[in-house]
């Protein structure tokens, strides 16, 4: 068992190493096979472990080696398998494998395909380390490691500096969050003397410790800052849309399904701490809902197929944080899982579309792809329905759980959550209709080139679509489940780690909410259909765009520009000032000044040596007189 746990991250690491070291000596297909194999083996391994965890709750701790030991600080490189991590393992390796498979087709013409797979494998490795870690430090390895891989993959096409800028931005923004994480670790070690989960989260440990709530709040706040960075929450979300510069499978894997959910994982992992600090929880809710709304609003007006999905991801992540904030950890994790399926599906679908469109990403230039790309069309529809929350697709269950928890917590929160869901449905169907329905708006060349993707790309779509349809059934709400005799498997599986939801609302109200939500969503979809299929309206081009809210939203509320003005430029100015205003004239100036002063003093002083003998005698006598004066 322990060996099996060690093997999980080892497989992708090995395939990374092979591809990285062999590089050009491998043919492209070989590299692809090695990469897929690594993840597949890891998936099988994870499945075995998941299976064993399913049978009974027995967390497994595996120490791989001692890592950093300094005095009483002891952080070993060790893994922990429990229900929470095993679920993430399944998602990462499962979705990861499918995306690998998809990439084989998607990247086959790219020169850097080997490199691509190497990074992808490395990413999987770090992601697995992140969720497997048995202490904060190991999580931090994964945390930073995935950031690094994300950097490499966003800037995969490094010849275009726009991509590089996006990559850098992602890395630096993540780093801001990481600093929060780092400080949180320092605080935890300082107050509790350990970073190990087993110590920190042993029953009653935190509650019994004499550490004040304020400190705990500070700790959770810092942790949450880390989560903000990784999971693209306000104010650190702007990197995620830019991260779409990477290849589409990367967007699917890293920036939708796995890495960005690391923040959720982290909060879920430390739920015991968060539960003790209501202030932070409130903050999480506020940030979460604000991000969800902001993402959704911006998503309404975007015309880039990937940007829409990106803002959708930001928005969905916000919803997950809402769930975390109200203490519904299970709901959040559940949404992570379902979201992983349908968002990966959507991204891969968009990848298939982009592939077919020879790189075109603007939905204003698409349309009518339904017939040319039937499989993509169908699977994309499933994904869209799932994300919109149409029962009985996966998204319905997870979203419903979040909304009902939110309702139990605060009615306004529910209303806002509902609004987000409606907007989600709208912009997703806007995207869907504009892409697949109507008539083709692209160039002749593009139209001529249109084709359905090959099997190795459509297969993952199909598998993911199936998951997106059925994954929800593991987490059927009580109200429905009781009638059908189905347990909420998901909740009971995670209960030992995350506890079970404390809030209960009456069944009738829950039914009502469900009905209301679904009805409204259907209405929104119909409205979207009316707008984009019946009326065939297409968003105007950038030039024609009227001033006003629409333009502001289209331009993402100018947040990037704002950050640029408030942080980046002042930092550059500060740097320039420090160099040109402080370092050269003052600090070095002082040094040079002393030198110059000495020199000028010297050139003055040397003049006392006039060369006149009589004068020397005078000085002599004068000095003697001085001595006399001194003694008198």
């Amino acid at each position, binding site marked *: 068992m322990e060996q099996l746990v060690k093997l999980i991250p080892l497989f992708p690491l090995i395939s990374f190493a092979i591809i990285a070291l062999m590089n050009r000596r491998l043919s492209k297909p070989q590299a692809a096979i090695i990469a897929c194999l690594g993840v597949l083996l890891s998936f099988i391994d994870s499945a075995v472990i998941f299976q064993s965890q399913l049978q009974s709750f027995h967390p497994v701790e595996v120490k791989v080696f001692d890592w950093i030991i300094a005095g009483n600080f002891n952080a070993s490189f060790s893994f922990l398998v429990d229900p929470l991590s095993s679920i993430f393992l399944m998602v990462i390796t499962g979705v990861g494998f499918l995306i690998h498979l998809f990439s084989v087709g998607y990247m086959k013409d790219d020169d850097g395909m080997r490199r691509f797979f190497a990074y992808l494998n490395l990413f999987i490795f770090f992601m697995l380390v992140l969720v497997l870690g048995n202490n904060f430090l190991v999580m931090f390895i994964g945390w930073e490691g995935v950031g690094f891989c994300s950097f490499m993959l966003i800037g995969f096409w490094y010849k275009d500096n726009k991509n590089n800028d996006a990559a850098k931005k992602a890395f630096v923004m993540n780093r801001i969050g990481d600093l929060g994480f780092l400080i949180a670790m320092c605080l935890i070690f300082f107050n509790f003397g350990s970073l190990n989960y087993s110590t920190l989260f042993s029953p009653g440990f935190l509650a019994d410790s004499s550490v004040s709530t304020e400190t705990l709040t500070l700790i959770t706040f810092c942790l949450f800052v880390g989560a903000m960075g990784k999971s693209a929450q306000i104010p650190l979300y702007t990197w995620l849309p830019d991260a779409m510069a990477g290849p589409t499978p990367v967007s699917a894997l890293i920036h939708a399904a796995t890495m960005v959910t690391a923040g959720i994982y982290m909060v879920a992992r430390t739920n015991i701490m968060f539960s003790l600090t209501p202030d932070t929880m409130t903050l999480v809710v506020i940030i979460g809902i604000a991000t969800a709304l902001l993402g959704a609003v911006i998503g309404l007006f975007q015309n880039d197929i990937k940007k829409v999905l990106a803002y959708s991801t930001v928005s969905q992540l916000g919803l997950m944080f809402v769930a975390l904030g109200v203490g519904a950890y299970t709901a959040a994790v559940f949404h992570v899982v379902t979201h992983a399926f349908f968002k990966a599906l959507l991204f891969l679908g968009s990848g298939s579309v982009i592939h077919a469109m020879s790189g075109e990403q603007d939905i204003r230039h698409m349309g009518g792809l339904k017939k040319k790309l039937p499989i993509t069309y169908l699977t994309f529809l499933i994904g869209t329905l799932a994300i919109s929350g149409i029962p009985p697709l996966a998204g319905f269950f997870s979203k419903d759980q979040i909304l009902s928890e939110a309702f139990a917590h605060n009615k306004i929160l529910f209303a806002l959550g509902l609004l987000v869901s409606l907007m989600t449905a709208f912009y997703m169907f806007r995207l869907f209709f504009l892409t697949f329905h109507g008539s083709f708006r692209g160039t002749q060349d593009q139209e001529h080139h249109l084709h359905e993707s090959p099997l190795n790309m459509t297969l993952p779509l199909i598998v993911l679509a199936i998951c997106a349809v059925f994954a929800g059934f593991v987490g059927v709400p009580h109200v429905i489940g009781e009638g059908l005799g189905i347990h909420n498997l998901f909740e009971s599986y995670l209960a030992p780690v995350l506890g079970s939801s404390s809030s209960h609302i009456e069944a009738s109200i829950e039914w009502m909410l469900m009905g209301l939500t679904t009805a409204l969503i259907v209405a929104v979809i119909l409205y979207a259909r009316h707008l984009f299929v019946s009326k065939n309206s297409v968003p105007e081009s950038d030039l024609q765009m009227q001033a006003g809210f629409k333009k502001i939203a289209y331009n993402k509320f100018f947040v990037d520009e704002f950050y640029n003005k408030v942080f980046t430029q002042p930092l550059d100015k500060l740097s320039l000032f420090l160099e040109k205003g402080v370092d050269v004239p003052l600090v070095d100036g002082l040094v040079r000044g002393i030198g110059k002063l000495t020199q000028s003093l010297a050139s003055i002083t040397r003049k006392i040596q006039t*060369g*006149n*003998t*009589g004068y020397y*005698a005078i000085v002599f*006598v004068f000095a003697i007189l001085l001595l006399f004066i001194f003694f008198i």
Partner: protein
Amino acid sequence: MQNLHGIPIDYYVILSTALFCVGALGVMLRRNAIIIFMCVELMLNAVNLLLVAFSSYFGDSQAQVFVFFIMAVAAAEVAVGLAILIMIYRNAGTSDTDVLTKLKW
């Protein structure tokens, strides 16, 4: 105060100090090398006077011997000094010390 032939020893000290100062002032203020030499001699003679006075005062002949040494050395010194002066005069055509300011700063 003890007397020396009816004159207090202080007077000798004051006299020779005054002589010494005159000599020193001469060295300091005069430009002509010869006169400066003379002033140095004056200073040495002031010392001689003082030594002899003290010698007599203490009834100790050591100082008088010293005076002879001083005189002998002064003679040697002046010989060398004049030689230097002649050399300068030969090269510069003057014995004014003001011309000797090539070496400075």
